[in-house]
């Protein structure tokens, strides 16, 4: 690092320019990461926080829109309860409805119909659990939006009145709509479902066991998918996540190209100096190590600065209506990838050092 540090100090304006570009990319990566996590939370946090191993839908149901199309009956639930490795199987209802608050404010709700007292029945952070026919436990985000415990919510057209009896501690949304848990019988009334009908069978595996989903499907006449696979049933989830992933991939590639291009120009600019160093006895390994250490220093400093700035901007964005959630593992992964790919870009440029001929140090090149 003898040379690397001194060159960084000597050509600081050039390195600062490159570091600024990487830092800006890091800011963008943090914002995209936050947006991605926010959209995922908005799309599937309601499902993710259910203590469910898998869902079994009506036979032949495709992932796309499974919760809106599938109908199962009590016989299928019973069939799943008898499967090896299954601790519990419960009917689960899921319907998106339009409603309005007592003050007349429109509210979209994802109604999760669950049997009170079952493993799907949420434990609220405030208020009481499901019990009465018209009681609902809502996502904490609805409280943030102004709804209060004891408020009445009326389902549009049907006129069914529901009372907010509890709220969860965290965000629970499905397809960007706030979740409201309600008794399964009330859900059937709203959904116009027959007695015993539900949207899917919610399956909970025994600790350490992995139920044979194919065998269960054969026995119950269902099509099951794991909880993670069921995320794709959330409206727009796959399109949103794949779009953001594509943008992130492009950013990583751009970052590697920018760093690679800078170090290519820098290495070419230093060719004669490198030839002198080779002539006076610097080994290729020494020069390669020095060059990579220089790139690593810049990338770590630039990414660190960019991530801090991104977290600051993200904190401002998160207070608004934008679905944004900064999650430490996601941010650290993004920063790690940025540094790794940047280093890879730099490495492809720096290997040119190995080809520098010390003979070029002789003569009148400088």
């Amino acid at each position, binding site marked *: 690092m003898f*040379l690397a540090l*001194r060159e960084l100090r*000597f050509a600081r304006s050039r390195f600062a320019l490159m570091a600024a570009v990487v830092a800006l990319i890091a800011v963008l990566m943090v914002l995209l990461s936050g947006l991605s996590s926010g959209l995922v939370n908005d799309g599937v946090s309601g499902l993710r926080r259910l203590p469910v191993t898998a869902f079994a839908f009506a036979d032949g149901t495709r992932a796309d829109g499974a919760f809106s199309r599938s109908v199962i009956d009590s016989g299928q639930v019973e069939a799943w309860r008898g499967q090896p490795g299954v601790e519990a199987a419960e009917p689960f209802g899921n319907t998106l409805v339009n409603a309005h608050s007592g003050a007349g404010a429109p509210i979209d709700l994802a109604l999760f119909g669950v049997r009170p007292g079952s493993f799907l029945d949420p434990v609220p952070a405030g208020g009481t659990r499901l019990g009465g026919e018209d009681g609902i436990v809502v996502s904490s985000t609805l409280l943030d939006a102004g709804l209060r415990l004891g408020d009445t919510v009326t389902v549009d057209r049907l006129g069914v009145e529901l009372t907010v009896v509890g709220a969860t501690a965290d965000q629970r949304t499905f397809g960007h709509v706030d979740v409201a848990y309600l008794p399964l019988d009330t859900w059937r009334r709203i959904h116009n479902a027959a007695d015993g009908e539900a949207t899917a069978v919610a399956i909970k595996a025994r600790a350490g066991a992995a139920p044979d989903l194919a065998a269960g499907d054969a026995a119950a006449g269902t099509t099951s998918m794991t909880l993670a696979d069921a995320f794709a049933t959330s409206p727009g989830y796959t399109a949103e996540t794949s779009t953001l992933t594509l943008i992130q991939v492009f950013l990583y590639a751009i970052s590697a190209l920018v760093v690679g291009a800078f170090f290519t120009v820098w290495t070419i600019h230093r060719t004669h100096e490198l030839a002198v160093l080779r002539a006076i*006895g610097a080994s290729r390994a020494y020069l390669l190590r020095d060059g990579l250490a220089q790139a690593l220093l810049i990338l770590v400093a630039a990414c660190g600065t960019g991530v801090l700035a991104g977290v600051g901007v993200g904190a401002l964005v998160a207070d608004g209506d934008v679905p944004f959630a900064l999650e430490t593992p996601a941010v650290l992964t993004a920063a790690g990838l940025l540094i790794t790919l940047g280093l890879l870009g730099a490495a492809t440029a720096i290997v040119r050092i190995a080809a520098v001929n010390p003979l070029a140090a002789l*003569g*009148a090149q*400088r």
Partner: protein
Amino acid sequence: MTLDTTTRTGLHLAGVTLRLGDGDDTVTALDEVSLTVAPGELVAVVGPSGAGKSSLLAVAGGLTVPDEGSNTVDGNDLAAMKPAARTAYRRQHIGFVFQSGNLIPALTAIDQLRLIHHLHRRRAEPREAEQRLADVGMAGKAHRRPHQLSGGERQRVGIARALMGGPSLLLADEPTAALDRARSHEVVELLARETRRAGVATVMVTHDTDVLRHCDRVVEMVDGKLSG
């Protein structure tokens, strides 16, 4: 490879031939060149451009390997060494003085010398770099970078750098090319003085016949052949 560094015998080029590609043709840059330079001796190599002077330095310094002949420094045959071993030998036993100094732009004068210790990966002798700079009259400008030095000062730093670590062989490539007459004399006088003081075998390639009086011996190179 075990290197014999206990005794200094200087540079011995014997029957060295070097052929270089020139488009579709091959040019004989060095044609059975033999040269011996004893420790403490300064030998000047003169001759027209393209005569093979730089090729002679390249072979003597182990920057390239001759097609025929041998090149030994203190009895160690550089041509027989593997490239990595030759680089290591160059680092430890051969000093280069280039045109215009060829100093590293990012390094101060003192760091140009400390770099050599760093390349050697050994603990620096306390104040060796400072002493070397003082020896060439540059103690007062130790913290200046190359662009803050005159041409003559850059060459003085270049000579000090080349002498760091106590080399057996010093190779100077047109060290006065960018200097005026007075500075040229100063630099070659310094080179001659340090050659004798350090007991190093020195080969200086030059076009500048004015400075030859400082040299112990002058040989002429024409069309790859050595005479004189």
